[in-house]
């Protein structure tokens, strides 16, 4: 059988949209299915972790007792709605987790117990259960078998179906040595035989971690989430104090307040909306990454992505298509363009490298016509192809009529022409230099008619082709305040030309892994957060050092271990999306916090006049919503407070609309929508609810 070349695997850069996630059940259905889960979360031991919701829970318990002792239509309604608030708060988290669960279930199916063929020290095979494998064991896997655990290929090369984890049906190449040696347990070998050294214990494999991540089981609060939680706790504390201080003041003023009323006021004031949705926002952020086939090993990394101010991008495969392509041909001395195109075409016919194919494609696209025989035709007619070797640094063809064509590095072709008695074209050096300056690779073409000395026909301009749309994306990033640095092994001249063409802010040419590391450290010392993508073992230290290190799934185990995210599609351009998702996560949090606090103003206008209008009739002037009665006003505020949580669950899961804009523009926009919106919405909402509530007998 023939193995696809490594080049073929290299060019396997799936489009991120070609692999849509399976359609998800509707949100309402997930919510319904998550309801039992939400109810089990009413356990106070769980709720303590969400202090705001915990306060609501205490309030619900308190009003329950009070309304048992002294049942009134008002106290029972408030109690029911307080419990609803608590359940809705848990529902948000349950729904977010529920979405991950479906994904985890699919992954679990791949974790069936496999039988591993372990190699003993004397290279005999023995059958053991996949669960009994230890780190360092060597196992043999052949076509049709499932790889029993995570590891590195140490012998052989095989095609592997990784669709179980990536959802990508096209098989990938895994081979020993190099940067494509990592295999994942649970994936299937499609062809050939490989020997794998196991690198992780059963139960700690990549798939196990993925399951834990998508289920949210391993979720820890991220730094910013903790900071926000602290602020919410302090706000809650202030409101607890304000409400507690209200009773003595009320008594002084001549009206002892019912405890139910105080609890209702407290629950309305504390930031329940954001308190309830906070963890759902975090889980949903991770989930959005999973939808893009990126696994974040920690929520911290997702948050850091929003803060990134320097993006390191490898040139090859990220900014440019991995391969150089023919972009132009420049004839020299008396040669014509058609002549040069034809020679270039002939010399590349048997050249299976992407560069070679691109020359054929280019020649045809440029309207080459006439005698266009295919390679097999030429061979049948007696032509002989000269393959590229490291010694000659040329390839070409000797035709049956004795004429010969060669293409290759300028010096090699020059040497051949000279040896065969030909003369140098006077302008060849100019053309070669011109192409080098433009960041291209020059390939000189020479031809020899039978019995004549050979002559140089011209130069093929091989060029790194920048992917379309890159400049626009970099412009967007610049608007966000993110600097892009292109990393390349090219010489500075070539690098500068490509950097210019792609529109990156800076480049690092002739980069070694050490250079990369130095650059990251320098950026970090300047207070900038750095994101990068990488796949090779020599990328591992840099991946570990970067604040956001995205390892390609095709990469080595070392790289995957070092990074804090893994891109299952192995698409480095996804870094840009990851930054967007990180920002969206933070914006969602901020927007809902602002909304939550802005809501309180309307609630005060509903509740405070209702509380004291009997002792201070003048306070009725503050009842600007003209609510029906004190009881209906308070109940409406409580109901609004509960319903707004449900109403905002979809937003917290989807994330607020995010557009890459500069900070001040984003702030203005979000402040208008969530700040001013949060101020106005409850006035309308509470009024509408009051219109309905006032119909309930016993509240009028």
């Amino acid at each position: 059988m023939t193995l696809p070349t490594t080049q073929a695997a290299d060019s396997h850069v799936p489009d991120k949209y070609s692999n849509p996630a399976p359609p998800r059940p509707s949100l309402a259905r997930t919510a319904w299915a998550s309801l039992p889960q939400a109810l089990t979360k009413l356990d106070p031991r769980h709720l303590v972790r969400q202090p705001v919701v915990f306060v609501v829970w205490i309030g619900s318990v308190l009003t329950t007792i009070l309304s048992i002792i002294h049942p009134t239509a008002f106290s029972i309604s408030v109690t029911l709605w307080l419990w609803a608030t608590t359940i809705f708060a848990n529902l948000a988290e349950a729904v977010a987790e529920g979405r991950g669960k479906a994904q985890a279930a699919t992954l679990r199916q791949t974790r069936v117990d496999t039988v591993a063929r372990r190699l003993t020290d004397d290279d005999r095979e023995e059958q053991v259960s996949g669960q009994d494998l230890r780190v360092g064991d060597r196992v043999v896997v052949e076509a049709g078998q499932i790889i029993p655990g995570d590891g590195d290929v140490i012998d052989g090369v095989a095609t592997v179906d990784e669709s179980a984890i990536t959802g990508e049906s096209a098989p990938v190449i895994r081979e020993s040595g190099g940067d494509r040696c990592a295999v994942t347990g649970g994936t299937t070998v499609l062809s050939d035989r490989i020997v794998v050294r196991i690198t992780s214990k059963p139960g700690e494999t990549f798939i196990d971690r993925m399951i834990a991540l998508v289920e949210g089981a391993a979720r820890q609060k991220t730094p910013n989430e903790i900071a926000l939680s602290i602020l919410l706790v302090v706000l809650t504390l202030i409101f607890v104090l304000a409400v507690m201080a209200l009773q003595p003041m009320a008594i002084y003023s001549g009206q002892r307040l019912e405890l139910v009323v105080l609890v209702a006021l407290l629950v309305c004031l504390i930031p329940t909306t954001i308190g309830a949705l906070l963890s759902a926002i975090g889980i949903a952020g991770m989930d959005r990454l999973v939808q893009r086939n990126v696994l974040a090993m920690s929520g911290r990394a997702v948050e850091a992505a929003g803060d990134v101010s320097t993006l390191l991008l490898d040139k090859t495969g990220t900014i440019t298509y991995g391969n150089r392509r023919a972009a132009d041909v420049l004839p020299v001395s008396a040669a014509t363009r058609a002549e040069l195109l034809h020679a270039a075409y002939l010399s590349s016919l048997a050249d299976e490298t992407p560069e070679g194919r691109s020359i054929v494609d280019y020649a045809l696209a440029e309207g080459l016509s006439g005698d266009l025989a295919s390679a097999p035709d030429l061979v049948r007619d007696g032509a002989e192809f000269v393959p590229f070797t490291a010694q000659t640094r040329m390839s070409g063809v000797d035709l049956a009529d004795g004429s010969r064509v060669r293409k290759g590095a300028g010096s090699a072709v020059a040497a051949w022409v000279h040896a065969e008695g030909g003369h140098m074209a006077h302008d060849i050096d100019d053309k070669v230099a011109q192409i080098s300056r433009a960041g291209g690779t020059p390939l000189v073409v020479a031809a020899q008619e039978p019995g004549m000395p050979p002559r140089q026909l011209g130069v093929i301009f091989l060029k790194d082709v920048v992917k379309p749309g890159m400049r626009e994306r970099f412009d967007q990033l610049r608007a966000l305040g993110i600097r892009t640095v292109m990393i390349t092994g090219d010489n500075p001249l070539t690098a500068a030309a490509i950097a210019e063409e792609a529109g990156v802010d800076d480049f690092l040419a002739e980069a070694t892994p050490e250079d990369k590391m130095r650059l990251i450290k320098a950026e970090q010392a300047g207070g900038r957060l750095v994101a990068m993508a990488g796949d090779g073992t020599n990328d591992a230290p840099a991946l570990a050092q970067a604040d956001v290190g995205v390892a390609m799934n095709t990469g080595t185990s070392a790289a995957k271990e070092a990074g804090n995210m893994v891109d299952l599609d192995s698409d480095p351009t996804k870094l840009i999306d990851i930054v967007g998702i990180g920002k969206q996560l933070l914006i969602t949090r901020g927007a809902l916090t602002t909304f939550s606090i802005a809501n309180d103003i309307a609630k005060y206008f509903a509740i405070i006049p209702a509380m004291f209008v009997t002792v201070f009739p003048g306070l009725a002037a503050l009842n600007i919503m003209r609510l029906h009665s004190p009881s209906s006003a308070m109940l409406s505020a409580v109901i609004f407070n509960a319903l707004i949580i449900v109403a905002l669950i979809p937003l917290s899961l989807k994330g607020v609309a995010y557009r890459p804009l500069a900070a001040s523009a984003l702030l203005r926009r979000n402040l208008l929508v969530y700040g001013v919106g949060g101020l106005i919405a409850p006035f309308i909402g509470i009024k509408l609810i009051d219109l309905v509530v006032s119909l309930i007998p016993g509240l009028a």
Partner: protein
Amino acid sequence: MHPVLQTVLGLGLIGVILLVVCRPLGTWLYRVFTDDKHWRVERLIYRTAGVNPDSEQRWTRYAVSVVAFGVASVAFLWLLILVQGWLPWSLGRSQNWHTALNTAISFTTNTNWQSYAGEVGAGHTVQMVGLTVQNFVSAATGIAVAIALVRGLARATAQAIGNFWVDLTRASLRVLLPIAVVGGILLMLGGVIQNLASPTVITTLTGGEQTIQGGPVASQEVIKLLGTNGGGFFNANSAHPFENPTAWTNLLEILLVLIIPFALTRTYGLMIGDRRQGRLVAIVMGTLFAGAALLTAWAETAAATLQTGSMEGKEQRFGIAWSVLFGTATTGTSTGAVNSMHESYSPLGGGLLMLNMMLGEVSPGGVGTGLYGILVMAIITVFLSGLMVGRTPELLGKTIGRREITYAALASIVMPALVLTFTAISLVLPTARDALLASGPHGLSEMLYAFTSASNNNGSAFAGLSADQPWLNLTLGLCMFVARFAIITFTLALAGSLAEQHRRPATAGTMPTHTPLFGVLLIGIIIVLAGLTFFPALALGPIAEALS
């Protein structure tokens, strides 16, 4: 002229003078706190005190120094007042132990709440050696803490935030003393008295007896205002003709109150190397100040039945506008001086003066305290709104993370917690309730005002509350002490953790904090947070009274 229009013109006049004065003063303050050299007299002080002026302190050491200095000052002042009977020029004046303790805490914490009446509680020695000295050093302490916080923002990857003893000494000697000398002379020229005379009893033309007080008034008056202290030589404070005889001294006193708080915003801008930031803070402070003054002036005219507005409790020589401007300046700066009786303001007017304090003393706030107060609010604002631009919130390149938001939130919760807790308890405690002059909403306002004033280290009195009794003396004393030193400690902790950080460079993705948008946001957050905390209490006090 209509009082509101008069207030507008007054604001304009004050604004113009501040613009002229605060620029050089702010620059001077900047030089003072970034100077490498020590004055000879300063070196003498450091040598005597055993301080190495060239070793800087971490925030913990700095905080310990501030608190230790505060506690020592309280102890000294308490003792001094208790033993004043044996001291010269004491005129036989005395205070009981709890009043003395309240006074000692009050002057040390820059509150200057006075449970005693100046004429009967403090002789000339206590006034000069005790109270006036504290008027200087408590103000200098506030400036020092503000400078330490600004250093925290200005420095990167640093451990130290300055040396408290150096900051204290320089603020006293290089800033407060020279201005006080000039200001004192100006006040004397304006007619404020300065002598060591005992009270003179005279018989008036109608045959009645009148006691004419004497004393070193001008020297204490100037620092009372300049250091945003507010403790009057006389019980009537700046309403007394010997403290504040004319409209001109009234203007001078308002300016003395405002110059350092506003000048410090320039110092802030210079120290962090971005004057726009300082300018924005000044504009925010000024907007809050002007807004409050205009609303109060409106309340005082709208509430009055007379064409001239409500003159009850106000001095004829100041009128409504200049009473309101003085009241707004002193309640907005933790000064606590009064030139009119706030109790007699219309319900809304009195409520607005109370709200100035409830904002946390940031319009423009006391010397130093105003700046660090508003920077703490800026940090909370940045945190809330900064998330909305999709980055971890940052102020001047410093990330507002878990530690920073904790300290900022704690610093801002201390005052409301004290006010609400002690107002509530005192309203139901019979001993404290009996101290109220009024009943109903106005009585609630009296109590609320007292604890708001103490917990903001303002010292302004609403009048009407007979505060000289053990419960109120002790709880108000507790509020003053905790509010002052807890907030300072959290602020310094904040400074320390900011100083340790790297500075993240500003990019297009950074939320700018010098723009009008941020200014509006900062004002919004300051008002909303205070409003949410105090709305129920205000509804039962001033608002209920106004709407009845």
